[in-house]
């Protein structure tokens, strides 16, 4: 595990970007770590793009903002372009290869594409593409123990959306599987 990770999550509005970030922060809290999430709200939110920042740390978090991320989760091309250069050395860029067709490279980060739209569509719900991404992300980073994300998801969905839990868990699994099958790793 890491002592302190800066994570940037970005994509179109509607792709579940904010939820992705919040699930990580909730998981941090669940594991009694320090978690911090903040949205970039502003002109872009209505225009169609959205992004948020997450920090997970073993100690009290000072600055809530960071210049460069350890991990970038890019759900679309404009987001990738916007944040691609703001990475720490040894970082991870996880991107939506359903929308970003070209192979992404970086001299600072390992770049891994996950065709989350395709996987989610196969599952019968484009809605859970962000959870597919979550599966891949957790498989690669081992940020939290297995059971944490499930507990957090149950709480997040609440009673009203409890029926959605199964497909979300399925999406998580598919994300993990994709990574395992592709044989990619991130230290």
């Amino acid at each position, binding site marked *: 595990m890491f002592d302190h990770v800066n994570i940037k999550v970005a994509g179109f509005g509607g792709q579940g970007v904010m939820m992705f970030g*919040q699930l990580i*922060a*909730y998981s*941090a*809290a669940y594991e*009694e*770590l*320090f*978690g*911090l*999430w*903040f*949205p970039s*709200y*502003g002109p872009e939110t209505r225009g169609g793009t959205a992004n948020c920042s997450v920090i997970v740390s073993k100690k009290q*978090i*000072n*600055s*809530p*903002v*960071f*210049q460069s991320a350890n991990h970038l989760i890019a759900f679309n091309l404009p987001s990738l372009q916007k944040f691609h250069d703001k990475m720490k050395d040894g970082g991870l860029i996880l991107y939506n290869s359903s929308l970003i067709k070209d192979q992404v490279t970086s001299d600072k980060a390992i770049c891994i594409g996950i065709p989350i739209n395709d996987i989610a569509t196969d599952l019968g719900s484009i809605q859970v593409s962000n959870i597919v991404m979550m599966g891949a992300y957790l498989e690669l980073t081992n940020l939290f123990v297995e059971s944490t994300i499930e507990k957090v998801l149950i709480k997040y969905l609440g009673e009203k959306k409890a029926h959605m839990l199964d497909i979300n868990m399925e999406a998580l699994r598919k994300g993990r599987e994709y990574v395992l099958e592709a044989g990619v790793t991130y230290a």
Partner: protein
Amino acid sequence: MAKVLMKGNEAIAVAALKGGVDAFFGYPITPQNEIPEYLSKHLLAAGKVFVQAESEVAAINMVYGAAGAGARVMTSSSSPGIALKQEGISYIAGAELPCVIVSVMRGGPGLGGIQPSQADYYQATRGGGNGDYQLIVYAPETIQETIDIMKESFDIADYYRNPVLVLVDGLIGQMMETVDFEKPVKKRFIPAKDYATTGTANHPGRNIVNSLFLDPVELEQHNLQLQKKYQQIKNNETKYEMINMENPEYVIVAYGTMSRICRSAIESLKEEGIEVGMIRPISLWPYPKAAFNEIPSGVKGILCAEMSMGQMLDDVMISDKGRHEIGFYGRVGGMVPEPEEIVDAIKNFKDKVVK
């Protein structure tokens, strides 16, 4: 509740409930909407009062009325909304009523933007209301501290019969952090509200809530009494934190989110062998002037860092009384500086010195 992850605005609302709020009056404005949204649900469910007013002007005057009638009242808003409340705030302070006002700052001037800012320091500490009055102003740096202060604010307001303004930037309002609601806060003995208008059937004599004194002799007396109270608040309620002040080369003064960014910068600088201390005002009024007397000798300069063009800078200058060179670093309009910028500002202190 042990540790939970919560958005700042929601945490403010929860803390207000824990602080015993009876009534909320407010008007929507970004970036503080989660406060009324949460309270609309939970206050009404608890049989208490939530009113979405027709405007900020109406909201602050509903606060005035309810506070005068003896309730624990609050409102919340953001920059232009707080501007509209200035007349009402002056009345509440003038009539010596308690209430809690939450101000979640966004970029200005005018409509400005909705990203975080600290450019309403003047608005909070000097006000735009008329006359010689003061709000008690607290500016926490984390959601945890915001919760603790919110809980205590209602007591402080009641104790001094004075409005308390809790000042945070939009980042504190919008971000989520892990927090603990059970941290105990100082308790105060609050006298019964024998001034409240509850009907003469419920108390001796007639109670009048008022800020009008047409006779200048009376109005001056009233002002002198207010000043006496303000002096008492200065003596009792000034809050600040001193960080890494053993033997610093430079001292930073910063509050709220900015002080957290500076903490990170101070750590980085330490790694590079540069020791930098920080005075972190928690109460912006009363301002911790005395902290400046404790600055060890040998300090090369003071850097005031704000998400504004330099407003707290006034208080830094007043407090330091010309003893040090004073530098300033500010970002505005929603730009939140990163720790690296503060590191640079310290390294290039000479360029930052204000004339």
